[in-house]
């Protein structure tokens, strides 16, 4: 691989990470479409690289959430059973699937992500319920100064959604947070910060299950992974600082349009239609 493409991969990965961290979606959601649509990278290699990037991001991000005690380790482990299983099934399917199927599913996920940005997250405190599964948690919210107790509900549907998130994660190399955070928050009534912290821990384990399947099939390419990891790490740092300065909600319409464009581009690519400026 030539040096110019390596630099391009790094810069694009940094840009994807800035967008991803400002939206709280991680870099993977943008990485694979941009690598494949604009840099002509084999989609399977892009997905393998994305899975490794998600692992590295999770390791770095989880440290912060663990320090803040936002992560619910019992909930993470319980949901992880079905998510990891789904990731292996998704990866086994994805690694051998026709690229047009991968493009189509990825495109639809991005369109969903764009639409879901318009769904408000719930910050309402819910009355504590009984907790037979011992999944309840409590954390200190530095933004409000309050202690936030909660008990997750609807565990069985949550496990079902986790399985689906795992399948998508394994097939597409994204972390699955784009599905898990809204599911935990809106379905299981986990407060946003606990959902984000728990998801950040989970996506690392999920993506490891994916990455090993891609490794087994020779689809982990260091010449793509290294610039992607470096770019996403640096971009993530810039993104998290920008997020503090800029009201990301104000930019959500613009980001929603970008997600929609990438999503529809992938759907069109699946149908054999290429837009101007994109590579085969």
């Amino acid at each position, binding site marked *: 691989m030539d040096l110019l493409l390596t630099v391009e991969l790094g810069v694009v990965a940094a840009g994807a990470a800035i967008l991803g961290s400002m939206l709280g979606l991680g870099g993977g959601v943008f990485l694979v479409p941009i690598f494949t649509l604009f840099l002509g990278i084999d989609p399977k290699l892009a997905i393998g690289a994305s899975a490794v990037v998600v692992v590295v991001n*999770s390791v770095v991000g989880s440290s912060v959430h663990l320090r803040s005690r936002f992560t619910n380790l019992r909930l993470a482990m319980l949901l992880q059973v079905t998510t990891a299983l789904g990731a*292996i099934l998704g990866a086994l399917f994805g690694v051998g699937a026709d690229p047009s199927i991968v493009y189509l599913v990825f495109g639809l996920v991005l369109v969903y992500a764009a639409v879901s940005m318009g769904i408000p997250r719930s910050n309402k405190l819910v009355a*504590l319920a009984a907790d037979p599964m011992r999944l309840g948690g409590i954390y200190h919210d530095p933004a409000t100064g309050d202690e936030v107790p909660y008990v997750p509900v609807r565990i069985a549907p949550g496990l079902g959604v986790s399985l689906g998130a795992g399948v998508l994660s394994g097939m597409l190399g994204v972390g699955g947070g784009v599905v898990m955070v809204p599911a935990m928050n809106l379905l299981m009534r986990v407060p946003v910060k606990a959902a984000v912290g728990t998801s950040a821990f989970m996506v690392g384990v999920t993506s*490891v299950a994916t990455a090993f399947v891609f490794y087994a099939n020779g689809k982990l390419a260091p010449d793509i992974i290294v610039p992607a990891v470096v770019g996403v790490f640096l971009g993530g740092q810039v993104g998290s600082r920008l997020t503090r300065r800029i009201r990301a909600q104000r930019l959500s319409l613009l980001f929603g349009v970008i997600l929609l464009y990438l999503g529809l581009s992938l759907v069109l690519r699946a149908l054999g239609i290429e837009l101007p400026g994109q590579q085969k």
Partner: protein
Amino acid sequence: MNVPEPISTDVLHGRHSALEPLYDQVRALFTWGWRVGALVLVVGVVLALARGEPPGASIDPVGEILPTVLSGSAAGLIDLAILWFMILPVLATIVVAVGFARLGDRRYALISLLVLIVLGFSITLALAR
């Protein structure tokens, strides 16, 4: 019919306090694991740039990585760093499983073990390559 009592915040506080050491152990693993991996990756990339040796187009099978590293290959170091990053969440799951077992929380120790078994399937595929 008995209706289960809602849980109190005191119980949640007690449960949270018991988990404090486990949070710190997983965080330490991630923090130091990240530093070690980043160091190996940086050394590998610097060596590769200095020698004009490009990273490989595919990570070597596990059994071939250590001999490649010992022979001083930059690509071997880069492969090792990537695999090291990939093993960290597996190690974290082991730490969590052991932590729950030490706390006497057999249910979540077993659930964590189940996660490890699922991950073990994926790792076995990779080792069999």
